[in-house]
């Protein structure tokens, strides 16, 4: 078996999932926020805060995990000759999908990765988020089966593939040198989740490994459910189950397993919006082709459409905190439920108008 195919065996995806699960719980032990050893949406939100795109003082930090995911995938893609700069597949639609995925994630308070980690730490509220995620993915599958298509990408000049990795190197330098401008930027939280972090070098190293392995194994938390429903393929699903079980066992060993619904860290008990937020996120991720982690790994491969999605998420994080759509431990933000409803309407409009459903409707009316 070639090294390329070795990474694609069932055994390796199980090990990958287990490594991510254990790494996340260890990162929590080393300082990352509770049940948030790794959360792609939350960490991109923290980066948005550090850069001043929002001013929620408790969630501002440059998370090396995000940087490591992109750069680890970049290294793997370069080594295995899969760095292929490409783009041009409805970039603005992908930006909006990234934006909406972040809005939904911040109503639930976590992306699919954190939903699994919250559950592994005993947070029962995550069950409603995961149910919402599966519902959102199922709606996305309906549109895919109906011919939803964002259009083909094309090979682009190499520079386009290097943009997001370069931005990651840039913000890594801001983290290392902790640049302070007279405006106050770069912003670093002195209290709250943004002030809780694992040592930079350890977090970066772990994330580089995850980025490398995830690029090779194609790890994706949304495709895990999507592929089971759509094409009866359990490959990625076994990786996600492995993540959940490994994180659960690791949490018990590390004394981080606290079962219950009330008083869970960075979580609320408004189940309808835990569910609703993740319906929106799951639908947006599915229409865009993968979970937030996968979008980072694809960016490392030179996929500039995935990079646009990532930038949409960061923009969405700024909006979510500036316009009070993000939840807190007390419950959904003032405009969170309205934002989820509007977001769902936008996604449904995209689903109908960019699939064969629009054509069928036209034919019927003619």
């Amino acid at each position, binding site marked *: 078996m070639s090294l390329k195919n070795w990474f694609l065996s069932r055994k390796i995806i199980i090990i990958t999932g287990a490594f991510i699960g254990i790494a996340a719980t260890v990162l929590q032990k080393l300082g990352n926020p509770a049940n948030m050893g790794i959360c792609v949406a939350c960490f991109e939100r923290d980066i948005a805060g550090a850069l001043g795109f929002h001013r929620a003082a408790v969630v501002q930090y440059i998370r090396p995990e995000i940087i490591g995911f992109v750069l680890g995938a970049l290294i793997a893609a370069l080594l295995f000759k899969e760095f292929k700069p490409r783009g041009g597949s409805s970039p603005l639609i992908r930006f909006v999908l990234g934006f909406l995925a972040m809005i939904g994630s911040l109503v639930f308070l976590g992306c699919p990765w954190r939903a699994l980690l919250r559950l592994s730490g005993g947070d029962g509220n995550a069950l409603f988020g995961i149910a919402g995620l599966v519902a959102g993915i199922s709606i996305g599958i309906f549109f*895919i089966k109906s011919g939803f298509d964002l259009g083909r*990408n094309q090979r682009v000049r190499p520079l386009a593939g290097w943009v997001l990795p370069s931005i990651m190197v840039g913000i890594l330098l801001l983290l290392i040198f902790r640049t302070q401008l007279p405006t106050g930027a770069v912003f670093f939280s002195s209290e709250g989740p943004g002030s809780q972090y694992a040592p930079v070098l350890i977090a970066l190293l772990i994330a580089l490994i995850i980025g490398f392995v995830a690029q090779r194994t194609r790890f994706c938390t949304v495709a895990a459910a999507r592929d089971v429903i759509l094409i009866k393929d359990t490959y990625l699903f076994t990786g996600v189950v492995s993540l959940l079980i490994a994180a659960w066992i690791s949490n018990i060993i590390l004394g981080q397993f606290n079962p219950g619904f009330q008083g869970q860290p960075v979580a609320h008990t408004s189940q309808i919006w835990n569910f609703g937020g993740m319906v929106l996120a799951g639908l947006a991720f599915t229409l865009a082709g*993968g979970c937030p982690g996968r979008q980072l790994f694809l960016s490392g491969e030179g996929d500039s459409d995935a990079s646009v999605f990532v930038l949409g998420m960061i923009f969405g994080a700024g909006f979510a905190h500036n316009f009070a759509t993000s939840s807190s431990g007390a419950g959904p933000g003032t405009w969170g439920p309205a934002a989820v409803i509007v977001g769902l309407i936008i996604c449904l409009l995209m689903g109908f108008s960019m699939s064969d459903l629009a054509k069928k409707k036209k034919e019927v009316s003619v």
Partner: protein
Amino acid sequence: MSEKFDVRGLSCPLPVVKVKNKLTELETGTLKVLVDTGTAKDNISRMANNNGWKVEAKEQGEEYLLIITK
């Protein structure tokens, strides 16, 4: 029946979905598929193997030609 089916440039999961649909229409024979990413190549190969169809992958520069026999 032998034809070349181009799924280059399509986002995940469209390559595997389109190829699966195409193969479902095919009773027996060979389908040649052009893909341009490792992920699409892997997903299509796994789907074909899971269905008991034979897959041969050939690297052609930065692209792949998959020959699937049903």
